[in-house]
């Protein structure tokens, strides 16, 4: 590739007759560029250090103490692994929240990805009006984790909500969905699945990348729609599918807003929506057990890390990069 004019600029400027000067200049301008680079990076760097890295290290330290939210620093004592021990052996709510979160993620993530892929397949062609539909299907994701949306859900799926009124038309006696411990988590899952717009847009972009010739060749060879899907679309889309899967799994485990709003920040009714992150919040900010909450957060980070690593390990077997990127 030809070097661009901008890269050549300062060099030709120095001229070939003064190599040592040029070299020095080059060195100082490199250093200058490095400085400039760091200056440009500084907002992120400061942000990363100040509001991510340091607090994280701090929370790791806290997780080995008995710190409660309003305590003076002088009251802090190191307690070793006591918080972790309590979490794993003494706290029934902890394992309950793990169960709730697993159920939520294991059901919501596949459903959401299936919905996103399904709608993306329907909208992939540039037919008239598809732009509008893409926008409309994306809309719920824009509102994303918003509190307002969760409040709408609360109104729609309560005993006298719109959904039960709708069921009433068909003579079906509805349930108090959000206030029924057997159904409240399902309501949250539906809320999550409904926001499939973001992965859908990524699927759409991925679908556009698949060369049309592959389909043409396949149809010449007599492959039907479903064979084309399984043997062309899916393999060609697998990197995008992998990306969406990783993102949604992480997202799914972190689900918070819906559960917080629907349950008034308590994970009710009877702990049925006590997701891991919600319990962590309650432990830290309502019960003031900040050290315990920190320990929970670190276990959470490790588990999500392990799950993501596991996904990457399986990805080697099913993700197909057409440019040989997996070699």
């Amino acid at each position, binding site marked *: 590739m030809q070097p661009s*004019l*901008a890269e*050549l*600029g*300062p060099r*030709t*400027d120095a001229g070939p007759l003064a190599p040592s000067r040029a070299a020095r200049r080059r060195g100082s301008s490199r250093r*200058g560029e490095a400085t*400039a680079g760091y*200056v*440009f990076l*500084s*907002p992120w760097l400061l942000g990363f250090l100040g509001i991510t890295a340091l607090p994280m290290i701090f929370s790791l330290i806290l997780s080995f103490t008995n710190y*409660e*939210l*309003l*305590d*003076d620093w002088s009251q802090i004592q190191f307690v070793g692994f006591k918080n972790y021990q309590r979490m794993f052996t003494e706290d029934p709510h902890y394992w309950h929240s793990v169960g709730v979160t697993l159920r939520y993620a294991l059901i919501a993530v596949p459903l959401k990805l299936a919905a996103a892929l399904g709608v993306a397949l329907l909208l992939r062609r540039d037919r008239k009006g598809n732009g509008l539909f893409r926008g409309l299907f994306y809309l719920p994701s824009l509102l994303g984790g918003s509190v307002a949306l969760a409040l709408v859900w609360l109104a729609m799926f*309560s*005993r006298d909500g719109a959904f039960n009124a709708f069921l009433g038309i068909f003579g079906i006696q509805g349930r*108090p969905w959000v*206030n*029924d*411990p057997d159904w409240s988590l399902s309501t949250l899952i539906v809320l999550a699945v409904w926001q499939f717009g973001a992965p859908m847009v990524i699927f759409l972009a991925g679908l556009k990348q698949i060369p049309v010739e592959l389909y043409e060749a396949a149809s010449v060879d007599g492959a039907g729609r479903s064979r084309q899907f399984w043997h062309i679309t899916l393999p060609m889309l697998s990197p995008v599918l992998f990306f969406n899967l990783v993102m949604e799994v992480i997202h799914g485990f972190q689900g918070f807003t819906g559960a917080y709003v629907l349950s*008034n*920040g*308590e994970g*009710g*009714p*009877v*702990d049925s929506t006590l997701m891991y992150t919600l319990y962590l919040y309650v432990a830290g*900010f*309502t*019960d*003031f057990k*900040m050290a315990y909450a920190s320990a929970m957060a670190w276990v959470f980070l490790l588990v999500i890390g392990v799950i993501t690593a596991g996904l990457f390990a399986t990805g080697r077997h099913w993700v197909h990069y057409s440019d040989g990127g997996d070699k």
Partner: protein
Amino acid sequence: MKPTAPLAVGAHSPLHHGSASRRSLLRGIAAAALAVPAASVLAACGDDDKSSTDPNAPVELSIFWWGGDARAKMTEDALALYTAKHPNVTFKKTWQANAGYYDKLATLTAGGNAPDIFQIDDGALSEYAERNQTLDLSKYADSNKLDKSKILPGLWQAGVVEGKPAGVPMGENTPGMIYDKGLLKTLGLPEPTTGMTWDALIAWATQVTTKSGGKVFGTMDPSADYKALWVWLRQQGKQLYDGKKIGASAEDLTKWFDLWKGARDTKAAPPADVVHTANAGAVANQLVVTGKAATSFMWANQLPELQKATKSELGVVAYPGDPSGQWARAALYFSVYKGSKHADVAVDVLNFLVNDVEAGKILGTDRGLNANTDVRTAVASTLKDSAATAAQFETDLASKFGTPPAVPPKGHVKVRSLLITYAENVGYGKATSAAAADAFLKEANAALAG
């Protein structure tokens, strides 16, 4: 540009200019990046240096409370009156609904940014006071800068934690069962009375449900409500708290849960999901307001707030059983943050809010009957409608009150939410009364100990 310039130079010189101006742009950004925090640091230092002793120096106090629109209006007006008398003192007022209030207060306090003055109730006062976050008001009370001579001694004492006054009581209240008078008139049924037994209430409630054709349940199911449980326990000579333990036995709690299971079974009380919507505590969701039940278990001073939310006329009586189970409770307090830079002024504001008759008239009985007896007398004649009803109810009941229990210990907030969880477990049929009672006792005692 000179036409004699060599082509190559001419071609790249604009780029060169471009990089030069880019570099100066960078320098500008770098300078700005350094200057902005420096300026704000300087500004911050300037603020800190304002700790002058000039009594007329401008002071801005931050104040934070929970409540509805009406309370906000009254509080703002009372503070405006203080500013009118002390023009150098202004207020930064923040208020919100009860839900989420304590989360926010805890976060602010942990960050060292708590407001100078904040509202607090007996659920959290011990938490904050025992952790040294509230200002010890002893020296102000001793020097009479905070005049407690007219404050009812019982209420003042309720704000004392570990021997130190930690909060100024802003009102007195007592549990009140609020009922739908309008509905009962329509149905032609008698109103509930103070002193009726719990069983009589449930029998009466069954009638209401039947007469209304199942549309309105006779009574809210208060099995998850700590104050209802507390009154019920007191009527049997027990307390909710025995020091840092739960004062009730597993048998007591089982009996309590069974009482309400029976009420749900006979349709005197609504099913668990309806009760659940009210258990969160928001006034707008109380069943007597939403028309789902004929009673709600509240504090008596909340009557006007509930009345505002419904067209049907409401009334108030004591919780069922012997009214000696009830007591005069310091409804809520204002506390001063330990780290306040203007503690003296903040205490003076509290002194004004609790002892000034004019301020009292503005504040009314929204936070309960006024703690200062002179103010209470002066305010009584100005009350109207439901506020007058609530005040009258409480005044009439005063002679029957039992001795007030000790202020709830640290951990009370957790106990409250545990009771909701386990009462609802029974309500939804997820646990038997006995199993829920055992689990509640175990966890509540652990929360109180830790």
